[in-house]
């Protein structure tokens, strides 16, 4: 079915161009009107096409829109073309919906900022790029969005460019992402030269893929691993997660939109999109699952000891993204996307809530100087609490359904194992602990801020609290589209995505996993209850340390001061990268320049020049400058030549 899908990304692009080209000439109202309307329109068009899609029969749920030929070179041929299938429909709705809410929120949050117009310009560009990413019908166009969102992330992290830490963070994000993109590029090359196309239709056709790749073969493993490298960059997984915590230098709505809800999930989307290929490379699947779960617990543990409210959330995001990759790694792609969606709601809410807090605290981000905000900012508090409950997986809220499905799949799937499940479970406990630590430190207890800040504490304006409320609602109900069978639901979300997950159904193992899932109903229930109990225990622990017995936390910290130092220092990974990669590169480059270029190559050249120059100096007296000497020598020369002619001629 052909539909004008380009309407979805078109409006943010127009908004970007309008705001960008007329920068500095528009009033704040106009700017925000343009920006919000454009994103709102694309959300509406997204909805329209989503319902168009629903009206189609299950098996034919694909809307296409070929725009023009982008790069033709011999057999290589790539279009600018869009594709809407259930997977991208989910993404489009999440992206444009959350973006719209955050745009509204930003009107309030950024109101007093000097770079108001610039901010919305970048934000619209981001939405455009992200929609390109999810709507693309081939890998290359997806890569355009992929890099485009990276660029916007760079611009928005470094939004307050006068702060060196901000522009540093932006640069770091871009370069680390580039390392991932390097993998993405090479992965694309393999896919193109093997399947002859970068179009999803061809390259991701199971029949084509099976005809050119051997299951578990070197080529497919290399391709998927390289693509996964791209995903680790964009979605902040080990070893390329380091940029995301630093990315918190950007304005908080940006952290909510880009670094929690949408951009960082692009890697998950990409892997889910390429499920056909991933399912053919079991080795890669194992790597994905292990990296995912390792990142989850690693980042979760770092989050335990951070004091900056946004950093806790950032590490939490890394950790939750780890969950999503774990899901992909155990072939539960739709569970990963499900978690992606619920996470987008509650994590955006958490960030916006923290933004509201920071706004009220006049920029203070350190939780040690907060406390007792519950009374002063009730709406923020309640919405924040809902999101916290959602992320910890309290039954009935969205996070519960998605997280539990991942844990169950990692236990039951043939690709999973009990160890992955166990680590995932511990991470869930950690999540509960650090999230409630955050809530208790921020909203409960005594007010630790200075008196000046205290006087100015206030609830945020409506333009900020209404988005919070909307997201809170979504955080609660977002999970009900995918109630698992065991709880009496029929997991409509997974069913809806089924046509895209061709790889899962194509491979025998996948079917087997599904079958076993249906059979072990009681196990699933037991595990579910177990994880809820564990979460409750950790919430109590947080309550114990940060409300009831504050001294105990300090004692504990002293007791394990070494461990605390390591965790607080984020395992010193940044320092390690700096010492092992960055410094040698800089020093080596200086060596190449000063020693190799200047000393050796130029030394050789200039040395030749000096030698010739010295030889010439030796001959210089011959050039006396006296005209008659020259003519005399000239005549003697003539005589000699004539003589030679006479004698030998």
């Amino acid at each position, binding site marked *: 079915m052909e539909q004008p899908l380009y309407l979805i990304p078109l409006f943010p692009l127009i908004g970007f161009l309008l705001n960008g080209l007329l920068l500095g000439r528009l009033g704040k109202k106009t700017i925000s009107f343009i920006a919000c309307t454009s994103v709102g329109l694309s959300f509406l068009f997204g909805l329209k096409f989503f319902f168009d899609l629903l009206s189609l029969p299950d098996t034919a749920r694909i809307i296409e829109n070929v725009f023009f030929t982008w790069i033709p070179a011999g057999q290589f041929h790539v279009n600018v073309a869009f594709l809407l299938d259930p997977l991208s429909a989910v993404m489009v709705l999440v992206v444009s919906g959350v973006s719209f809410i955050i745009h509204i929120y930003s009107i309030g949050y950024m109101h007093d900022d000097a770079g108001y117009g610039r901010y919305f310009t970048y934000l619209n560009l981001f939405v455009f790029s992200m929609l390109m990413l999810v709507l693309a019908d081939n890998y290359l166009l997806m890569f355009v969005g*992929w890099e485009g969102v990276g660029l916007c992330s760079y611009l928005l992290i470094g939004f307050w460019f006068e702060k060196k830490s901000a522009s540093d963070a932006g640069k770091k994000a871009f370069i680390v992402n580039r390392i991932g993109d*390097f993998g993405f590029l090479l992965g694309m090359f393999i896919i193109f030269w093997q399947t002859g196309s970068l179009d999803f239709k061809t390259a991701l056709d199971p029949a084509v893929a099976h005809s050119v790749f051997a299951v578990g073969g070197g080529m497919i493993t290399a391709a998927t691993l390289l693509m996964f490298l791209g995903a680790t960059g964009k979605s902040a997984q080990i070893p390329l997660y380091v940029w995301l915590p630093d990315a918190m230098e950007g304005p908080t709505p940006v952290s909510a939109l880009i670094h929690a809800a949408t951009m960082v999930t692009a890697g998950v989307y990409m892997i889910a999109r390429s499920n056909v290929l991933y399912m053919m490379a079991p080795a890669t699947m194992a790597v994905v699952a292990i990296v995912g779960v390792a990142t989850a617990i690693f980042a979760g543990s770092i989050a335990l000891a951070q004091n900056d409210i946004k950093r806790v959330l950032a590490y939490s995001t890394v950790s939750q993204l780890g969950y999503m990759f774990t899901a992909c790694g155990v072939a539960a792609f739709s569970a990963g996307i499900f978690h992606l969606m619920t996470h987008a709601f509650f994590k955006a809410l958490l960030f916006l809530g923290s933004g509201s807090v920071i706004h009220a605290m006049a920029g203070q981000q350190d939780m040690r100087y907060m406390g007792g905000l519950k009374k002063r900012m009730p709406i923020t508090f309640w919405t924040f609490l809902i999101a916290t409950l959602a992320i910890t997986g309290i039954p009935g809220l969205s996070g519960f359904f998605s997280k539990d499905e991942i844990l169950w799949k990692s236990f039951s799937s043939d690709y999973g194992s009990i160890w992955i499940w166990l680590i995932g479970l511990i991470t869930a406990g950690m999540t509960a602990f650090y999230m409630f630590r955050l809530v208790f430190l921020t909203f409960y207890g005594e007010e630790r801020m200075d008196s000046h800040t205290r006087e100015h504490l206030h609830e945020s304006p409506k333009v900020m609290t209404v988005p919070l409320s909307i997201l809170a609602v979504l955080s609660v109900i977002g999970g009900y589209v995918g109630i698992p069978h065991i709880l009496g639901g029929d997991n409509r979300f997974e069913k809806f995505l089924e046509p895209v997950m061709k790889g899962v159904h194509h491979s025998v193992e996948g079917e087997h996993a599904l079958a076993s899932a249906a059979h072990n109903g009681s196990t699933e229930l037991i595990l579910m209850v177990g994880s809820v109990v564990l979460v409750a225990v950790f919430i109590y622990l947080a309550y114990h340390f940060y409300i009831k017995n504050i001294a105990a936390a300090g004692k504990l910290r002293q007791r394990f001061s070494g461990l605390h130092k390591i965790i607080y220092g984020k395992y010193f990974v940044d320092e390690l990268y700096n010492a092992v990669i960055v410094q040698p590169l800089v020093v080596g480059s200086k060596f*190449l320049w000063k020693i190799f270029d200047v000393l050796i190559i130029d030394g050789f050249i200039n040395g030749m020049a000096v030698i010739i120059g010295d030889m010439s100096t030796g001959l210089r007296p011959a050039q006396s400058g006296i005209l008659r000497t020259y003519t005399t020598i000239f005549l003697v020369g003539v005589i000699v030549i004539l003589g030679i002619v006479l004698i030998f001629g």
Partner: protein
Amino acid sequence: MENQILTLVTFFPLMGIILLLFVPKTRHDTIKAVSFIVAFINLLWSIWMYAMFDPVASGMQFEVNIPWVSGFGIHYHLGIDGISLLLIMLTTILSTIVMISSWNAIKTGVKGYFISMLLLETGMIGVFVSLDLFLFYVFWEAMLIPMYFIIGVWGGPRKIYAAIKFVLFTMFGSLLMLVALLYLFFMYHGYTGEYTFDMLKMYEMPIPLGAQTYIFLAFALAFAIKVPIWPFHTWLPDAHVEAPTAGSVILAGVLLKMGTYGFIRICLPMFPEATLQFVPLISILAIIGIIYGALVAMVQRDVKSLVAFSSVSHLGFVMLGMFALNLQGMEGSVIQMINHGISTGALFLIVGMIYERRHTRMIADFGGLSKSMPVFSTFFMIVTLSSIGLPFTNGFVGEFLILLGTFASNKVYAVLGATGVILAACYMLWMLQRVIFGKITKPENENLKDLDGREKLVLIPLVILIFWIGIYPKPFLRRMEPAVNDILSRVEQAKVKLAEMENKTDPVVYEDDRQLGTVEIEGE
């Protein structure tokens, strides 16, 4: 008229010089206006030519072939295919832009400067249209002279050193080329009894492998110095740093392309067997250039020399793609030539603009310009990003096709080459951060004037091209495809021939070689 379009485009700037001779040297504005108008009209001619160019036909178009020095078989033989068409367009566009950009920068010797610029334009276009080796050589050398003066007279503090280094490096290579060219001349006579320098005829000459190797090396060295391929690059940073802005733009934008064009026009189709043998060597040097240029660029303190080293890196990509010897790689290589001309040219213009304001190019002297010069910073960022190769800018199309092609021919090369993509982001963004981001630390930077209308006029066409090639490169790719296919078919034939030769054990090659030796003596 249609038949003479190439002659017109090539020599129209010379007409401008004649006009300029009648303008008194104190009337600066008239001189500038005349040169700009001449360059602009030439741009219009070239656009007309572009419009008339048949995009699907293979072979040369607008051919002109009249005897020049008939005694030696030298012909005035011009003609273009898709590759040279694009390079000519690049030349005329950059030349026009450079005329505007030099408006305020040049204060002394204005007349001589603009005469040199116009002469340079003729020389550059001449190289791209010549189909006669002798004519090619004449233009190749002719363009050295104005460039020498532009660097040596209107350059920076070490201008003489830089100018002489530039000329000596180039001359060293081109003398070898001259020898090789004469060798070919006599060899062709030996085969057919006809004296000619005609490239198209030389394409058809079966050159024995042994001789090909040496001639290829001689030509390749001349071109490699011009490109420049590592390790022949050290003249480039010096020349760029010392040259005036316009000189740098033309140098990076067009002059370097003459080297790569030489490879594509002469080395590949004329010596395909030798080319195949030298693929590993050139590819490895290109990769070293990519990585080395990027690394060294990273630690530069002068913005201009940073951009100069980034050129080494980018030209490494061009060479890598070309020697992938497949359609994607070579098309990417050609489009990357254009891209590099646009992006790096724009970067040099931008550096020049800031230099006019602050009279320094040291990175450490800047910082926070985004605050005082937002428009400037926006342009700077766009151009930098295109240089990094962000999708939907021109750089991406080129780099992607190059790496795609290289991947098909050799995976290791592609992987190594792709690291350049990462490093490009490193050095460019680091530079960007130190120049336009951060706090304003130097009081001089606080009240800098943002770009005026003239400067915007200079940059906007380039930015439009950056996005045009990035988003809709089809018109360009389509025009070059027949030409690239022509060249590749020659290389393919050579592949078959080499394979046959390996199967047969009798030394055909050596017999040919001996025959050649006698032929040569006859010729002399």
